């Protein structure tokens, strides 16, 4: 089979392709598809172009910032391939217009996405429409391409996806040991407490006297006192969170038996007398636009790559806090952290650094802190280009139904077994996958105490990832979401949400089989209900346990409740890759083993879900162990001549 064969040419010309995502991979992919002769392509992307995209999303220019990625990408490619048809959808792939019927018109779907949610959604639609999916992901120099064909290879959800990285509450509130813990504290606790929704639950200690004495009357130090000037208020907050709270923590001797004791930090000890009164020079700011308000600017700090001293961090902290209250007062109470909000990044960097100094943890620059706090994906053009090339190669095989030659390919940073691009045979579908097989799930729940709302929020949405769920007990509808419901139905379902399961119109008790369906995704799951009286608050915080649904071996090491750092799956890809490699997961395709996954294996695909590893983790990156075998190894490389014999060794893709 020469690549330029007639059959291949015809398949390419006649194919209708859906591309989801016009970002880093998407730009490269659209270009390579166009050059390869594809004639009919649809692209869906809801994003608009940002400056930090321009270093790799080469179809976009400075002048396009703010415009639709899908549309600009289409126009750019039509410039060098004017005679093809490209349809751009500036929309969310989860919008109802992109239903199963829409997906059915395509011969293959190609994903260049950056988040788990959208990937799961597209996976389900592809299964429902029976359209093959080529999935991809990159981070830094690493990347992966996989092929998902219903009934032939595993689906995107056959394997557990790593849960968002979370940390035990006490690590964040009392015993941080890494910089990321300080960032989470600064962002999710302190920033949220000062500038976010006041009604939000928050684990920060806000009392200035011991709870034992008179907790009801102890004041909330975060309340600004009458006539208190903003500089005083800032210093009071500073002294409370970095000084007083550390003293309180130190008083618990048990905690520090085997740990380094933190050091309380007070403004008086850090800032010279004159500075603590007159910090930045706000008069020099003529910010008309709030996005340009910056503590760095008013303090004359220029280089975001530089690590500030404790004193500089303290000045930034006080200045940023003040600027929020003076220049952005109307937003206070409704702010949430945003990596593109300069002042918020400055505040979080400074607060995290002061806390790090207190706990003897290394300080970081604003640039690094921003990456960690914002879960920024590190990305380069070259990896995207390579991955896009590999996607097109797999897409062509899919169009030719060349099943035996489907591969999932890893793009590696370090040479392993003489390879930088390592193909492995795809895995067979997981027979107990709740998405692509019909295996029922089972749910332990207290049917007398849990409400239908808890079930919808914690299971149907959070775990099963459904957007438009419909819940049935036999033929009785218990709950439904949709635009076409009449008023009675809406009221009825709203009432059901507040009822405990056993008191629903059609009582749900132990032994009940519920059917949960997402009409858009055309996914149906059966759930066996098992009644259970008690749940461990710490180990089972949801108050219910779903099994048959595979949660990744997640980062929650402690049994405690935990706090995440946002994002979807932010485990370090590098780490997992190293592990996977050591376990020998990436077997060469010439090995005659049937690719059944072991449960312990975590595919790197699952890690490639966007919001990525922290700067710390990049630095700590483990080198992929070289498994390069000796020359006297009998194993031979697979060349075209012996592809047939390899085909014979395989047993599962026939």
């Amino acid at each position, binding site marked *: 089979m*020469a690549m330029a064969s007639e059959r291949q040419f015809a398949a390419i010309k006649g194919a209708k392709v859906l591309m989801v995502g016009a970002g880093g991979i998407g730009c490269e992919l659209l*270009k390579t598809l166009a050059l390869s002769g594809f004639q009919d392509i649809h692209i869906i992307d809801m994003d608009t172009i940002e400056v930090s995209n321009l270093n790799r999303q080469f179809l976009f220019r400075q002048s396009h910032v703010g415009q639709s990625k899908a549309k600009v990408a289409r126009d750019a490619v039509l410039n060098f391939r004017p005679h093809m048809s490209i349809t751009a959808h500036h929309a969310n792939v989860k919008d109802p217009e992109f239903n199963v019927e829409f997906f059915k018109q395509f011969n293959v779907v190609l994903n260049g996405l950056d988040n788990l949610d959208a990937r799961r959604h597209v996976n389900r639609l592809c299964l429902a429409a029976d359209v093959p999916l080529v999935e991809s992901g990159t981070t830094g120099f690493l990347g992966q391409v996989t092929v998902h064909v219903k009934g032939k290879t595993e689906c995107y959800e056959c394997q557990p996806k790593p849960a968002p990285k979370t940390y035990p509450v006490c690590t964040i509130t009392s015993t941080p040991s890494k910089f990321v813990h300080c960032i989470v504290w600064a962002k999710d606790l302190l920033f949220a407490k000062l500038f976010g929704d006041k009604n939000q639950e928050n684990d920060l200690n806000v009392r200035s006297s011991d709870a034992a004495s008179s907790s009801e009357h102890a004041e909330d130090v975060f309340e600004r006192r009458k006539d208190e000037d903003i500089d005083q208020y800032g210093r009071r907050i500073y002294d409370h969170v970095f000084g007083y709270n550390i003293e309180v923590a130190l008083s618990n001797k048990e905690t520090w038996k085997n740990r380094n004791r933190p050091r309380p930090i007070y403004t008086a000890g850090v800032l010279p007398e004159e500075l603590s009164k007159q910090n930045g020079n706000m008069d020099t700011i003529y910010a008309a636009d709030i996005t340009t308000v910056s503590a760095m600017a008013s303090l004359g700090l220029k280089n975001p790559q530089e690590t500030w001293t404790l004193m500089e961090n303290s000045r930034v902290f006080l200045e940023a806090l003040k600027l929020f209250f003076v220049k952005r007062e109307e937003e206070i109470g409704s702010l949430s952290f945003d990596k593109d909000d300069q002042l918020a990044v400055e505040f979080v960097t400074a607060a995290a650094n002061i806390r790090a100094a207190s706990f003897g943890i290394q300080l970081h620059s604003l640039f690094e802190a921003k990456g960690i706090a914002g879960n920024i994906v590190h990305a*380069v053009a070259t990896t995207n*280009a390579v991955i896009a090339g590999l996607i097109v*190669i797999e897409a062509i095989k899919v169009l030719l139904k060349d099943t035996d030659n489907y591969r999932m390919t890893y*793009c590696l940073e370090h040479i392993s077994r003489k390879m*930088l691009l390592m193909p492995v045979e795809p895995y067979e579908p997981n027979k107990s996958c709740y998405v692509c097989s019909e295996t029922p799930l089972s749910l332990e729940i207290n049917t007398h105490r849990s409400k239908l709302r808890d079930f919808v929020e914690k299971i149907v949405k959070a775990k099963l990832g459904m957007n438009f769920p419909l819940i049935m007990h036999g033929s009785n509808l218990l709950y439904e979401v949709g635009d076409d419901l009449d008023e009675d139905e809406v009221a009825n379902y709203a009432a059901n949400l507040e009822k405990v399961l056993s008191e629903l119109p059609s009582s749900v008790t132990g032994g009940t089989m519920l059917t949960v369906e997402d009409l858009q995704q055309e996914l149906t799951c059966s759930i066996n209900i098992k009644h259970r009286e008690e749940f461990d608050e710490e180990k089972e915080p949801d108050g219910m346990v779903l099994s048959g649904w595979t949660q990744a071996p997640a980062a929650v090491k402690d049994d405690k409740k935990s706090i995440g750092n946002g994002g979807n799956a932010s485990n370090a890809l590098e780490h997992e890759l190293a592990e996977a490699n050591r376990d020998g997961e990436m077997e060469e395709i010439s090995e005659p083993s049937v690719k059944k996954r072991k449960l312990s294996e975590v595919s790197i695909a699952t890690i490639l879900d966007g919001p990525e590893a922290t700067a710390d983790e990049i630095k700590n990156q483990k080198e992929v162990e070289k498994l390069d075998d000796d020359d006297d190894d009998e194993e031979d490389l*697979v060349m075209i001549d012996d592809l047939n014999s390899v085909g014979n060794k395989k047993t599962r893709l026939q």
Partner: protein
Amino acid sequence: MDGEELTEQETALYDRQIRVWGADAQRRLSKSHILVCGMKGTVAEFCKNIVLAGVGSVTLMDDRVVTEEAFSANFLIPPDEKVYAGKTIAEVCCSSLKEFNPMVRVSVEKGDLSNFDAEFYDKFDVIVVSCRSITTKKLINEKCRKLSKRLAFYTVDCRDSCGEIFVDLQNHKYSKQKLEETIECQLQFPSFEEAISVPWKVLPRKVSKLYFAMRVIERFEEAEACTPGETSIADLPAVLKLKKELCEANSLNASHIPDSLLERLIMGSKEFPPVCAIVGGILGQEVIKAISGKGEPLKNFFLFDVMDGKGIVEDVSNPNTESE
């Protein structure tokens, strides 16, 4: 490092990649000068990658006039006669590349690289050569090696669904991360001539078949004095005859170079765009590694074939003539 800071504009534009390779590497990139010679699809991909990465300058050499064949895998050439009429391939590519990143200087140099003197070569840190005969490659590589400064030399060629990169970094020092440590390393590279002169029988038995096949084609084109990459199926009998001779001379089993592979290579004068993207991507990555001195570079051949999907690195150097 050298004290100069990146500008705010650079930090904003290169934010995501600085998170991959660091600000030092970005500074070194912005001071590097790249020369490319022979602008087919793979080199176009490579140029896009390094222009986006933010090198200091890229100089293009390709005096051929634009034909329909030229833009088949090269997205830098708009298929519009009004745009390309009367211009060389390098000139058309130059105007497209400039748009990708206003901070990179892209220019055209006319003439034959093998006739240029040391003063010209001296201006560059990296030279990439494509679609040149074995003699020209050797000659350019030798000129690079005679300079007082160290110049990274690469060749890249794609045929049908196969691609090959050769790398000569001479004596290359680099740092790599091992767990939490940064270790300083050094690698000694053979020249192109030294590498391809390594007798086949001293090579490890598992060396990629594509490596041998590429050497056969290279020798054939040299012997027949045909333009590199312009072979056809009519050449097959002669190519097979040459293969037999070379295998005998090198005591290599002739079955090690499948006839079907040679057939694909001589027929594939057109590049296959996904392979251009892959090989141009790997080459971009390698050049970035070489300039930044960060990460272990591949030594010294990279081979990719769609048929097995493997991107293989082969170290082809004579263990006896090498000194660390």
